[in-house]
């Protein structure tokens, strides 16, 4: 335990060091992952969900609000990007922007409606609204492709017309596109949680009334945190759509929201690296379990996932990263 402890302490000391290490790992990942039985597709999924979980942690870990509906923003962004890319052949980056913008607006509206509710009640409401989008996606056949999902989302070249353009069709290249997005997202989050804003979120998590009594408009900060986390979800969603060239209703399902909660908690709530690790572990596990842990030729990853999750909830609520972290 002391070895990781030391290693952890050094990491802890220097921000740029941390981010550099992280970036290097992410950039080398496709070359490492085959050794854990992975492949590019898996690497891509890990990074996408790392982005998702990283943002979700802003809400759950730093503000202390549990949402069970963030898959809605993930899926919504993916779908709207897909639709606009398919129907009016605009550049991919533009399409992504559109998807993210739409999801954000939705987040703002829903946020306004429910942000004043707290704790479990809030969680339930997020589930409910998430499901609304799930059913719209799975029923509005003509528009969303219904249960068939939305096929034929293009993934050819990214770029700004006239300036530059790179093909991201090939998996490896697409991975590096995502990796760049991830690193940017990571830096932004890092800045964010170390900014005044991030500090205030912490005070809200610690003691909402007091935060209010020293003059912070708690509701506004909570709403902002909700929106920002949704933006991260949206970014992940658009990338996911590009990754599969395809969106399907189950991406909006509350079970998917549950996944990101699991990732964040297993990795370690309120820590910077926790959710990233959590996402990696869970995504990897799902694939590895479905490859190696067949019972009567059937896959029961939900079972294993559930057990692991229960173990963390009951015994190490601080998650993997929190487990290494020195308890004050």
């Amino acid at each position, binding site marked *: 335990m002391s070895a990781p402890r030391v290693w952890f302490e050094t990491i802890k000391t220097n921000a740029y060091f941390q981010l550099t290490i992280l970036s290097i790992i992410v950039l080398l990942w496709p070359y*490492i992952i*085959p*050794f*854990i*039985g*992975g*492949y*590019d*597709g*898996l690497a891509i*999924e890990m990074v996408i969900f790392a982005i998702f979980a990283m943002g979700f942690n802003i809400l759950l870990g730093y503000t202390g609000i549990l949402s069970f509906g963030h898959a809605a923003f993930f899926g919504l962004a993916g779908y709207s990007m897909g639709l606009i890319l398919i129907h009016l052949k605009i550049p991919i980056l533009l399409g992504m922007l559109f998807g993210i913008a739409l999801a954000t607006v939705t987040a703002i509206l829903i946020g306004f409606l429910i942000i004043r509710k707290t704790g479990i009640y809030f969680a339930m409401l997020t589930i409910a609204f998430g499901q609304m989008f799930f059913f719209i996606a799975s029923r509005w*056949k003509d528009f969303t492709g*219904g*249960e*068939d*999902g939305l*096929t*034929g989302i293009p993934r050819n070249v990214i770029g700004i017309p006239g300036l530059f353009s790179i093909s991201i*069709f090939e*998996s490896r290249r697409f991975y590096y596109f995502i990796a760049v997005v991830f690193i940017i997202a990571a830096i932004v989050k890092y800045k964010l949680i170390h900014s005044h804003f991030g500090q205030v979120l912490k005070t809200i998590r610690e003691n909402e009334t007091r935060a209010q009594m020293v003059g912070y408009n708690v509701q506004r900060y909570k709403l902002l945190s909700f929106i920002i986390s949704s933006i991260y979800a949206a970014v992940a969603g658009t990338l996911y759509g590009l990754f*599969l*060239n*395809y969106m*399907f209703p*189950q*991406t909006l399902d509350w079970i998917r929201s549950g996944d990101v909660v699991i990732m964040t908690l297993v990795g370690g709530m309120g820590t910077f690296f926790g959710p990233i*690790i959590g996402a990696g*572990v869970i995504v*990897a*596990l799902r*694939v*590895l*379990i*479905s490859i*190696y*842990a*067949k*019972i009567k*030729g*059937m*896959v029961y990853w939900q079972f*294993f996932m559930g057990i*692991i999750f229960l173990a963390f909830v009951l015994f190490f609520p601080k998650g*993997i990263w929190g487990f290494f972290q020195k308890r004050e």
Partner: protein
Amino acid sequence: MKKKLIKKVSRRDFLKVVGATGAAMTLEQFLKAPYVGAAGKPPILLGNIEPLSGPYADSGRDEFQGAKLANDEYNQKGGVLGREIKMISEDAPSNPGIGVQKAKKLVERDKVDFLTGTLTSSVTIAVADYAWSQRKLFVAFGSHSDDTTMSKSHRTTFRTTIQNWALSTACASWIAKNWNVRKVYNITADYTWGHTARESMNRVIVKKFGGVELGNDFTPLGTTDFSAQLLKARGLKPDCLIVNCYGADQINCVKQFKEFGLEKEMKLAGPLSGTPMMKGIGTAAAGAWGLSWHGTIDTPGSKKLYAALMKAYQTYKEWRPSYRHYLGYISHTQLFEAIKRAKTTDIIPVVQTLEDYRFDGLKWNRSYWRAFDHQNVQDVLVGLAKRDENWKSEDDYFQILGHMKGDDAFPNYEEWKTNGGRELEPYDMLKKA
């Protein structure tokens, strides 16, 4: 024994992964260097995706078994082009996203040469799109939906299953001719499959035979209580009630049809049924249904396959091969034959030799994958569902009433085009982008 070992490994493994250090374990897995052929030549890798879990697990298993039988036969004969056939099977319940993920895994990790299988059309269509993007040949033998070879067709997709259009046409023509049904009442599952089925039914009954649709009800998926619809139907006194529903909906609808004693008042028919439904319907079975294949087909080929399947898979006394077995078997054998003809696994020659090649589909007339939509044209059976107390085996679920020649049953080019058929991509696009 082997399973046991795998389980042991995996348990230890993911414990480590939880400890956030995955490398060690999977390294050992990785070094096993999974798929390298025994003797020199690399094997031909097939990636098979079936729902081995979820509501369609039964059908998925049947298709898997059929396909496996084909592989074994060819491997016994020393493989194809002297290369061993290896099939990597993935479980994808009816969630298309998982379908695509599994396809990606098969292509990117296991580097398979061909993709086969898939059951629900949502998964099929999703995988087909991916297969096209990777320029992998994909033999789909699950989905009945028209889209697969019409609006969502691809140069890389070959579909063995009979599409709804043909099933409905065959069934409708038969009841119109033999029961001279003219007035029909439709109960239609409210999703694409149901809608297209109803249209095909009406096309024959109303347009071809000048009949009339007295009424129709769109029932949402998972409808369990058809009393309202059945009572409406009873009021209108049609010659025949047409059930454009599948799965549990069909089971419930037919059962209640019997319960309400409607069979004395009208006939029952539907575009598609099969063993799984008949199991559920039990002794309430009734009506004429479109079928793809049946164990009692008296062609030598079918007899041979029937025997082989019985030998390989019979689990209980009443057990009999289902048409899903047939689909899996025929698809794989024909794929292998094509590879033999092409003398390579490269995609373009294989595609070209598959198109319009007439082969013995173990039915009365020869079957072939049409060049313009890659739909497998074959004889379509119509069977009478009858399961009374003295049934012997699952074969007795249906009694074959007759069959329709493929070319009459399937949409011709004009019909295909006008109903949203999408022209296949040109061959040169098959060269990987």
